[in-house]
């Protein structure tokens, strides 16, 4: 369970990322966070695994306080939280296998990780993660040889290899074409259902948000302005979240 109590994030340049946010996300939920860019979606996701330190308030993941955790505690905490990025963030010059094993580096001893001497079990976990996103045939391909959609699946596999309880996805489909975006979202949904991993996804396409969001959270200027089911999130709600009338850019084209 993820709990935010009155969480505020103020960046060093004075910009307020989160402004007194209160949220409780029970285990296994599939949450979609929507809002304009700069509304605080990204900050919310990055605060949960401590990539962005919170300024005040309390943020706990499974009872463990994120802010104030020591480096070691933070690394252990992060190892239980998978993360997926808009730009995939794969190391393009190495194999898919090495990229996926990067998800397990938190408990590979240094002397083995330095030379890349992976054990059978580590490779087995990587294979299974790749199988779950249906891309195992590319295991030994260089990441730079994959298409955008394939790279994002490898990134999901990397997060899965961590054996996480929480999955965070920051605009995971913003760099993908519509059919691929659908497929990646379905992968995330399936993983959420099969493994009951709590999943938070940032999106700005409202049709995807409605389609996949078991729960939809709307953010504006660092505050939560809507919290309900995907069915409740009609156009009026989105206009309120976005603070303007909807345009064709807000829906996934061709989906």
């Amino acid at each position, binding site marked *: 369970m993820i709990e935010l109590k009155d969480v505020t994030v103020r960046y060093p340049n004075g910009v307020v990322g989160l402004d007194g946010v209160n949220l409780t996300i029970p285990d296994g939920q599939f949450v979609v966070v929507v809002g304009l860019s700069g509304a605080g979606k990204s900050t919310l996701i990055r605060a949960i695994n401590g990539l962005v330190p919170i300024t005040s308030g309390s943020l706990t993941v499974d009872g463990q306080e994120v802010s104030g955790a020591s480096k070691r505690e933070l*690394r252990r905490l992060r190892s239980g939280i998978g993360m997926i*990025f808009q730009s995939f*963030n*794969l190391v393009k010059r*190495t194999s898919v296998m090495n990229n996926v094993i*990067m*998800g397990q580096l938190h408990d590979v001893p*240094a002397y083995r990780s330095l030379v890349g001497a992976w054990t059978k079990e580590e490779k087995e976990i990587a294979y299974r993660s790749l199988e779950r996103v249906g891309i195992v045939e590319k295991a030994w391909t260089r990441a730079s040889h994959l298409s955008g959609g394939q790279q994002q699946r490898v990134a999901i596999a*990397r*997060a899965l290899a961590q054996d996480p309880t929480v999955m965070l996805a920051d605009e995971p489909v913003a760099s993908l074409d519509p059919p691929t975006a659908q497929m990646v979202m379905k992968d995330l949904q399936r993983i959420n259902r099969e493994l009951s991993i709590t999943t938070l996804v940032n999106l700005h396409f409202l049709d995807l948000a409605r389609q996949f969001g078991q729960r939809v959270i709307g953010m504006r200027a660092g505050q939560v302005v809507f919290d309900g089911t995907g069915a409740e999130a009609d156009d009026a709600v989105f206009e309120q979240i976005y603070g303007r009338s909807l345009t064709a850019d807000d829906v996934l084209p061709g989906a």
Partner: protein
Amino acid sequence: MTTTASSTAVAPARPRKPRPSPTLVGGLLAALAFTLWAGHQISFTLAPLFTNFANGWQIIERFLQPNWGYIFRVWDAWVETVAIAVVASAVGVVVGLVFAFMASRVTNRSPWLYRAVKIVLSVIRSLPDVAYVLIFVALVSIGSLAGILALIMFNIGIAAKLTSETIDAVDAGPLEAADAGGAGTLARARWAVLPQILPNYLSYCLYIFELNIRASVVIGLAGGGGIGQVINVQFSRFNYENVSAIVIAMFIVVLAIDQLSQYLRRRFV
């Protein structure tokens, strides 16, 4: 914008030509003054080029008649030169890589260690290779070990500087992913950074090897072994024909290694 008071003038006043900035003028004057002062201090003159050319030419003429046979008489020294360069490059680039990781904010998150390593590296780089050879000759006596140790110091400086600048410029995405996965500092450097810098690093390695071959003249003159030592001996015995034969052979070796490393760069990098 100022306009003239008279109503007939429609065109705005022409801007005055800006004065050259005082820093620029001051800088140029300082450079000029320093040039004159420096030239005066070393009594710079090109006069010998005209007055002493005939005398000098007699010696240069001897250089122009290389004793080709001598090149292979000192075969051992050539082998030694290449061996020195191989050992010094290998050790230098490996240690340099470790320093490079510590000399970039991307991979070193301790501000203290970062500053300390930066300072150590600038000090290492500020000493010329000759100084290192002289130091190590005093420590381990004349011979190739002194040359190897001196070149290692020299190589660490260059390898660390070039590589750490490459590390500064890597794509931050994989680093963020490694952080989000809870990877430790070492694992993060090995798997999120190293693959990204590897092509550049390998080409620095080849470049450093080339530099080491070129430097062998200097190294040997100061007592660090290899072909430079032969040049030193022949030069002090006024055997200019032998010196020029070696210099020409050296030139060909450098060109050959240059070609080889360009080939390797294309092939592997």
